[in-house]
C-alpha cells in the first residue's frame, strides 16, 4: 500500500529514514509475524493432538494476531514516516474487516463442505458435495428463496407509500417536526419488540385491537397467520411499517434538495400540478429513489427477526425467509455444515443479484437527453 504523489491534499513532506530505523521497522513486522506463525503451528499441532501443550482455546493466537497487527501499524510510521502516518488512517479498519470477514468466509467455505453437528462428539466430517445434493432436494430452502422474491417485490408498494408521505411532509404544513418525529418512530423500534407489540399482541385473534377493528369491519373470524398468503402479507406489512420511514426520509432529503426555481418556472409556464410532478419532481428524484430502493433491498435481504419471533416460518414454511430458515435449521438440528452451505449459496445469489441491480441502476439513473 502506498500513497501516490497526487493526493487530494497538497502538502510536501520530506522524510529521511535512516537504515537503522528501517531495520527496526522490518524487525517489528517480521518478528511479530514469526511469533504469530509459531503460535499457530504450536496450536495446530496441539489441536491434532500430535503434541500436548495444554492449550484450551485459541486465545493465545488471537493475542499474537493483535500484537502483529499493532506492530504492523506502528512499523508503518517507522518505515515510511509521513506516508506511513497517512496509511495509519485506513490500515486498522482494513485489518479489522479482513480478519472479521475474509478469514471467516474462507473458514465458512471449509465448513460448508462438511457435516458438522456441534453437539455430537464426532466433530467435523468432510462430506464433499453431500450438502449440495441435500440442498437440491430440500423443498423448504427453495420455498424460502421464493418467499424472498415476494418480500423483495413488496418494496414497490413500500416505495410508493414512502414517496407519497415524503411529498406530503414536504408541502406547506404546520407541525412538520411533530409529523417527522412521529413518522420516524417505527424505525427506532427493535424488530423483536415490534414482533411482540404488533405480531403477538395487537394481532391476537381474540382481543387484539386490530382483530377487534377487523371484526367490526365485517371479517368475523380473523386469522392473521392461518393461511399462507395472509401470513406472508402480515409479515410484509410489519416489515414495511418499520422501514417505510427510512425510505421516506431519504426521499424527503432528495425533495428538499430540488431547487425551488424549477417549480417556479413550471408554475409560470402554467403547468398543472400533476404534470409538474411527473416532469420535474419524479425525474429529479430518480437517483435518490434508486439509492433508497437499493439500500432497502439490502436490508430486506437480511429480514429475519420478525419472522423468527412471530411465525417462526409457519404455516408450513410460508413466511420463511432464507435467514430465518437457516436459523431454525441450526436451532433444530444444530448442523453447522449444512446451514453454512445454504448461507454461502445465498451469499452467491445475493452478490449476483446485487451486481446486476447496481449495473441496471447505473444505466437508469444516467440522464437520457
Amino acid at each position: 500500500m502506498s500513497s501516490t504523489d497526487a493526493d487530494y491534499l497538497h502538502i510536501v513532506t520530506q522524510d529521511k529514514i535512516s537504515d537503522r530505523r528501517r531495520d527496526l521497522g522490518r524487525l517489528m513486522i517480521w518478528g511479530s509475524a514469526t511469533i504469530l506463525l509459531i503460535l499457530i503451528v504450536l496450536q495446530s499441532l496441539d489441536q491434532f493432538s500430535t503434541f500436548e501443550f495444554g492449550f484450551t482455546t485459541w486465545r493465545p493466537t488471537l493475542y499474537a494476531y493483535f500484537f502483529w497487527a499493532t506492530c504492523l501499524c506502528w512499523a508503518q510510521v517507522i518505515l515510511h514516516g509521513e506516508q506511513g502516518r497517512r496509511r495509519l488512517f485506513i490500515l486498522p479498519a482494513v485489518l479489522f474487516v479482513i480478519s472479521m470477514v475474509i478469514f471467516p468466509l474462507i473458514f465458512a467455505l471449509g465448513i460448508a463442505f462438511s457435516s458438522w453437528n456441534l453437539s455430537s462428539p464426532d466433530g467435523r466430517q468432510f462430506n464433499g458435495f453431500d450438502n449440495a445434493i441435500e440442498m437440491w432436494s430440500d423443498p423448504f430452502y427453495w420455498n424460502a428463496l421464493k418467499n424472498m422474491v415476494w418480500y423483495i417485490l413488496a418494496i414497490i408498494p413500500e416505495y410508493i407509500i414512502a414517496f407519497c408521505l415524503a411529498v406530503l411532509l414536504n408541502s406547506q404544513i404546520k407541525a412538520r417536526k411533530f409529523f417527522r418525529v412521529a413518522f420516524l418512530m417505527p424505525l427506532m423500534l427493535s424488530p423483536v419488540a415490534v414482533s411482540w407489540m404488533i405480531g403477538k399482541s395487537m394481532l391476537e385473534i381474540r382481543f387484539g385491537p386490530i382483530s377487534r377493528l377487523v371484526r367490526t369491519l365485517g371479517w368475523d373470524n380473523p386469522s392473521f397467520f392461518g393461511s399462507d398468503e395472509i401470513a406472508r402479507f402480515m409479515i410484509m406489512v410489519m416489515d414495511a411499517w418499520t422501514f417505510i420511514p427510512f425510505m421516506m426520509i431519504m426521499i424527503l432529503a432528495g425533495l428538499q434538495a430540488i431547487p425551488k426555481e424549477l417549480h417556479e418556472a413550471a408554475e409560470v409556464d402554467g403547468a398543472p400540478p400533476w404534470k409538474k410532478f411527473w416532469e420535474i419532481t419524479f425525474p429529479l428524484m430518480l437517483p435518490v429513489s434508486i439509492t433508497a430502493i437499493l439500500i432497502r433491498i439490502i436490508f430486506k435481504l437480511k429480514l429475519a427477526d420478525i419472522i423468527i419471533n412471530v411465525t417462526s416460518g409457519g404455516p408450513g414454511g410460508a413466511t420463511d425467509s432464507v435467514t430465518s430458515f437457516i436459523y431454525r435449521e441450526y436451532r433444530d438440528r444444530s448442523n453447522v455444515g449444512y446451514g453454512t452451505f445454504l448461507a454461502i449459496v445465498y451469499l452467491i445469489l445475493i452478490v449476483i443479484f446485487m451486481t446486476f441491480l447496481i449495473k441496471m441502476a447505473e444505466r437508469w439513473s444516467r440522464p437520457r437527453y
Partner: protein
Amino acid sequence: MSKQIFFDSKNDVAFKPKRFLGKTLIYLILIFWAIICLFPIYWTVTTTFKTAPDVMKGNLVPWWDFRPKWLGLKSLGLSPDRIFVESTVREEFLKRFYNSMIAAVGSSTLAVLLGSCTAYGLSRFKYRFGFMRNSDISFFFLSQLILPPVVLALPFLVLYKELALLDSRVGLIALYTLTVLPIVIWIMRDQFSSIPTELEEAALVDGLSIWGAFLTIIMPIALPGMVAAFIISLVLTWNEYFFAALLTSSHAKTLPVMVASQTGSQGISWWSMAALSLAAILPLIIIAVILERYIIKGMAAGAVK
C-alpha cells in the same frame, strides 16, 4: 388621497374551496399515518398498566375505561413498592439492559472511530494496495453491507467457541462493529468530502502533523456527522437480535433476546411482556425525539449529492 392603483383581482381574494379541501385532506392523511405509527407504542405503554380483564375487554384509554395498575413494572421489580426490595427479576432485567447498552455503545464508538479515520483517509489521500485504488477500497468497505448476517453467523459460532468468546460482550461488540462499519464510512465520507482541504493545508503549514490536524481541526467540524453516524449505529446495534440470539446464552444475553425468549408465554402475562418491550424501545424513542435531526442527517447522507 389619490385613487387606488393596485387592485386584488377577484381570483386572489376569493375563498378557494378546492385549496382548503386539499389542505384538509393532507392533514387527514398525515394524522392517519401518525396514528398508524404511534398506536402500537401507545398500546404497549397502556398494556404495561393493564390487568388481565382490561386486556380481554380491549380497554384503551386509561382512567376512562380502565384503572392503571403497576402490574407491568411490578413484574420487572420496578414498581414503586418493589423498587427498594431485593428482586431477582430486576437483577436479571438490569443485567440484560446493561449488556445491551455496553454492546451498543461500545460497538458504535468503535465503529465511529475506525470509520471516521478510514473515511478521512479515503477522502484525502490516494492509496494503492496491490491493484486496489481508493474507489476499490471504498467499495470493499461498502460492499460489507450486502453481506447477510447469516453467512457470518455459523462460522463465528464455531470460531468464537474456539476462542472462548462465545457468550461474551467483547465478541458481540466486535461483530456489531463490523455490521455498522460500512454505514459509518458511508456517512462520514459524505461529511469529510464537504470540508475543504484548505483547512488542513493551513494547519499543516502552521506546523501541525496530519494526525494533529485531523484531531484538532477536522474532527470538531465533522462532529455533527459523527453524532449522526453514532446514533444510527446505536439504533442498529441496540435492536440487533440475530447474532445475539445465536452467540449469547446466559452471561452476555442482550435485551432483545430476553424479550424474544419470553414471547412463548404470552397470553398469560401481557403486562410483563409489554413492560419488557417498552424497556427495549424506550431509550431509542427518547433519543429519536431529542436527536431527530441527527438521525435524519445521517440517513440523508448520500441521498443528496
